[in-house]
């Protein structure tokens, strides 16, 4: 493990990703310390950045910097909850499909195929619309379902690799139950690919959630949410306040970039071929 940790921490781009993610987490944790309440009107409307309002104010008189910081909290919460759903559904499904095979595997794999035969953005839109749209919970559920199929595939593939190995046979010979073998013997040996996928999926979840908000299927208009802020900014591109595009857009891009860099770094660190080469 320590060799892998060293490989990860020697990777400069991975460290850059870790810093980006760290900044966003810090912003989310300290959001309550923001100078203004994100949903309370201030005295100025549509003003450019100044000493009082670091990133200016929007057309509702809300302080953009405070909304941005609260947006970090909302983005992380949505992404973590969605990835949580994907893990809770995908990992057991993948374990069962890979372990039992046969018709169970067939049914689960076909269901995954149906979902993957669908453009993911459109699937998320359909699910969010069917759930009624217009709330954070809807977004979490829609995104969680859409990003789950790769987890099923990944875990299933990992189980198939581990299943014929001796230590699994040993656990079986000791009389361990299926559940015990799956969760105590098989699962710990599939941690690496799941960890990489979880990191990369967090970035995808942030992007998908922002897209749903942008289409009007996310939280209400006054919520401090990056996707909602961009929907608002869309109106400004015809006016002179085009800089309003920058804060939420850069926030989303840099956060997702951070998760992607960390995911790539983890993937490199876990890949035995790359380790032996360096």
């Amino acid at each position, binding site marked *: 493990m320590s060799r892998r940790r060293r490989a990860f921490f020697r990777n400069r781009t991975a460290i850059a990703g870790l810093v980006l993610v760290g900044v966003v987490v810090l912003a989310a944790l300290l959001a309550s310390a923001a100078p203004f309440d994100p949903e309370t009107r201030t005295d100025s409307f549509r003003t450019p950045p100044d000493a009082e309002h670091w990133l200016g104010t929007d057309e509702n008189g809300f302080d953009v910097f405070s909304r941005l910081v609260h947006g970090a909290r909302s983005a992380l919460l949505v992404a973590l909850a969605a990835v949580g759903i994907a893990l809770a559904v995908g990992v057991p499904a993948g374990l069962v499909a890979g372990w039992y095979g046969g018709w169970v595997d067939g049914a689960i794999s076909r269901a995954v*195929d*149906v979902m993957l*035969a*669908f*453009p*993911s*953005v*459109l*699937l998320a*839109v*359909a*699910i969010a*619309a*069917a759930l*009624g*749209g217009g709330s954070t919970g809807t977004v979490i559920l829609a995104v969680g379902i859409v990003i789950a199929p790769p987890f099923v595939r990944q875990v299933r593939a990992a189980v198939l690799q581990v299943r014929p190995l001796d230590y699994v046979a040993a656990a079986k010979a000791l009389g361990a139950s299926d559940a015990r073998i799956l969760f105590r013997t098989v699962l710990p040996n599939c941690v690496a690919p799941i960890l990489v996928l979880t990191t990369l999926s967090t*970035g995808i979840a942030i*992007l998908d959630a*922002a*897209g749903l908000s*942008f*289409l009007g*299927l996310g939280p209400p208009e006054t919520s401090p949410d990056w996707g909602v802020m*961009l929907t608002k*900014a*869309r109106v400004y*591109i015809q006016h002179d306040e*085009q800089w309003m*595009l920058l804060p*939420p*857009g850069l926030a*989303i*891009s*840099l956060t*997702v*970039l951070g998760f*992607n*860099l960390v995911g790539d770094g983890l993937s490199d660190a876990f890949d035995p071929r790359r380790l032996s080469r360096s």
Partner: protein
Amino acid sequence: MTHALRRILVTFPLLLAVSLLVFALAGALPGDAADWRFAKQPEAKEQWRRARGLDDPFLVRWGRYVTGFATRLDLDRSYQDDEPVGPVLLRKLQATFELTLCAMTLGVLVGLAVGILSAVFPRSPLDYLGQVLALGGISVPVFWLGMVLIVVAVKVFGFPFSSSQYDPALAERVKDFRTHLYLLESLVRLRLDVFASCARHLLLPALALSTIPMAVVTRMTRSAMLEEMRKDYATTARAKGLRARRVVLRHVLRNALIPIVTITGLQFGQLMGGAVLTETVFSWPGLGRYIVESGVRARDTPVIAGGILLVATTFILVNLLVDLLYVLIDPRVREGQ
């Protein structure tokens, strides 16, 4: 070929499952399109609901929909104006197809070139550029990029930005067009004024959308090329005195193409539906935007179901095409191994 045939046969239950899902989801919510359309005329509402069979259980409605489609290729009529949705959806599908095709072409060409050069010259400035492209394309939200492109084009280059597929002033010139692939048809008919207008309208949305396949193809090309270049046959080819360019382009690239073609096919399908965000930013009259704005907002199940079926069908057709491409690229597949 039998493989391709099997793929087609598997497609039908898949499409059935997809349409069932749409009807189940649409039926799961209280209220429907009638509440919205006949908000002020309760009697007309009940009459219309009976006429359209909206009170039947969703399985019955789904059965009727599937039989209608299977026997008459009928995609049912809209709940908003009782007009057939098929022709509208096909028109929107063509607009999305034109946008996706241009974005894919741009993305794949740049992605292949940058990916190959990054693999041949690792750690060169080009390799770093490739990595920036690859990471940027999957990290930057495409709808934000679209808006930034609009601002930059209008402010910096004075590019006259307008939405839709062509300049409305040219409406007379496209009246006799048989398809809605305006860019292609105007080129075939040599109507260069229309072609120029279409190209100008397509440029920004295609550029924005192309960053997604560009990123994915760059990444895949680079890693597949690096993987293949390490293999013995590449060393052998070099050792017997072939020029480096020939080894890279004729030997290595050919083997690396399989995963690249696969990912390109998957990307194409994803973009056909995923273009909805780009279409919204640029007011492009595409299918995804139509499904969201006309279908989802008004709870118009035939529009949603038909639109999603068309997208899923395109996705499956593209993947079928990819299977056939394997045969061209890889002789082992041709000989049925």
